[in-house]
């Protein structure tokens, strides 16, 4: 009897922070990309510091939580591993020239061995084909869409990762001809 009385009095204290939190998140603004703190934030996939604004990417959850990546290939790899999460809201990559976020699905990508991206798959994003061509004139390389980027990352990274139990297989990244 006394115990339930005490409990009744304490319960609001316990619940208060939770209720507060729910109220707080409910008032949050619409889900949109969060600015990356270059030099401070860590890549969610490869754990490296994010330092290059030409490649810093983001995955947003419906809750507004943002996962940040140092390269487009890391975003793609993370997405491939987590795409069954029903909470995923959107994917964002930076436009190579303006460094502003654009949706990953609408961006066009340049895959050029002479334009190395932070994690070695050499993928850069552009908001339009015209912009991309400006850069491609100098560096060359092939043009990809988002689906093809995913395919590339799957092939170059994820499928090879599966082989790690194999002791002596040949290393999986093609070296440039010397």
């Amino acid at each position, binding site marked *: 009897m006394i115990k339930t009385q005490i409990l009744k009095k304490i319960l609001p204290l316990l619940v208060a922070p939770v209720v507060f939190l729910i109220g707080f998140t409910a008032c949050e603004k619409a889900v949109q990309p969060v600015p990356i703190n270059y030099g*401070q934030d860590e890549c969610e996939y490869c754990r490296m510091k994010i330092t290059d604004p030409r490649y810093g990417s983001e995955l947003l959850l419906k809750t507004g939580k943002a996962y940040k990546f140092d390269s487009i290939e890391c975003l793609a790899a993370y997405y491939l591993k987590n795409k069954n999460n029903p909470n995923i809201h959107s994917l964002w990559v930076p436009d190579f020239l303006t460094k502003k976020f654009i949706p990953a699905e609408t961006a066009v990508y340049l895959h050029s061995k002479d334009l190395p991206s932070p994690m*070695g798959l050499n993928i850069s994003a552009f908001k339009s084909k015209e912009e991309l061509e400006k850069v491609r004139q100098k560096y060359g390389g092939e043009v990809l869409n988002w689906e093809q980027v995913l395919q590339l990352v799957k092939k170059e990274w994820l499928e090879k990762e599966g082989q790690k139990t194999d002791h002596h297989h040949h*290393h999986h990244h093609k070296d440039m001809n*010397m």
Partner: protein
Amino acid sequence: MKRLFLLLFLLYTAGLEAKTITVCPDCPINSIKKALEQAEDGDTILIKKGLYREGNILVKKSVKLIGEGYPVIDGEKKHEVITVKANGVLVKGLVIQNSGKSDIEDIAGIKFFRTKNCRIEDCILKNNFWGIYFAASKNGIIKNNKVIGPAKLSYLKSAFGTQIETNFGNGIHLWHCKDMLVEGNHVKNHRDGIYFEFVKNSTIINNLSEENLRYGLHFMFSHRDNYINNTFRKNGAGVAVMYTKYVYMANNRFEYNWGAASYGILLKEIYDSYMFHNVFYKNTTGIFADNTNRTIIEENDFIENGWAVRIWANSQNNLFKHNNFIANTFNVVTNSFQNPNTYTENYWSDYKGFDLNRDGYGDVPYRPVSLFGYFTENYPQSIILTRSFFIYVLDLTERIFPMLIPSKLVDEKPLMRKYEWSK
């Protein structure tokens, strides 16, 4: 005797063919470019003390560029200072400074592109976008250089929430190379001090890499390399090694990599490697192992780090043996209830057991993981509860009634005394 004659003869003929061209501001040949025009393969260009502003100097012949009294070659913040596209080039005793800077190009103080048997020795590189850059080269030597860039660590202090200058290049940058030697260099204030990408069968020895904005040493996809007797100090994020097999790291010091997301060393997808006699001192994290497998970590010292070892459950079949864990805030943390690695015969300074049978090993196993450590690894925000009374109670409860910590993550034979290995 016959042999000696032969040798003398060879030297003589070589001397006949290979001439020395002297360059100085007041000489008839007052620019390096002019000297290069006149030079032939095998010639030496002797550059006397002075300031040389010649735009981009392109070396396409196998010459020796040798400075006397440290002549200064200046890129006027516009050009790549020296570009080498020939084999067997030696660059020695120069000051190379003020390269250009670009948003989309890697402009270096000196760049070697598709070369063999090139050497750069005793040079001073100052204020270049990228310092020494080797691309697609073989059998190169980078020795006793001083590479000081413009990227100050203090940029990071005010970085949070504001856009800061992050566009810096690396100090010694090797890309798609083979059989290289990086020895005795001092690299400072670049983005990454020493950077290897697709570099194989190479050795990094006796270097000091410090106060770089991101990593003191950073390598990816660089198999069968040796890293010996280097010091990586006070780098923004420490050292990162990734996607590589057969790494040999011995006698290195990883120290004062003490920042919000810094590591002594970050191991990401490392296979079949060996870490031996390294010292991790005052790093936020000593070793952070993500997907690191079949690696032996033996006879290393972990002293006064935040986390001595953070190891994720995707890292398997690693062995921690004869290491000394001394006064770290957390010894080992992991994000899983499983333990696929082996910890044995290490010394843990906070081990509280006894050794009644006097065999040198504690009688009860040591459990290096705390529950709070587990939480911080899985829910990073919970770190904000550091030093909370709640955490003491939580850890104490877990020690008395273990529930969450992997029961197999134990050192069955904890050493009673520090393991002495000779340095």
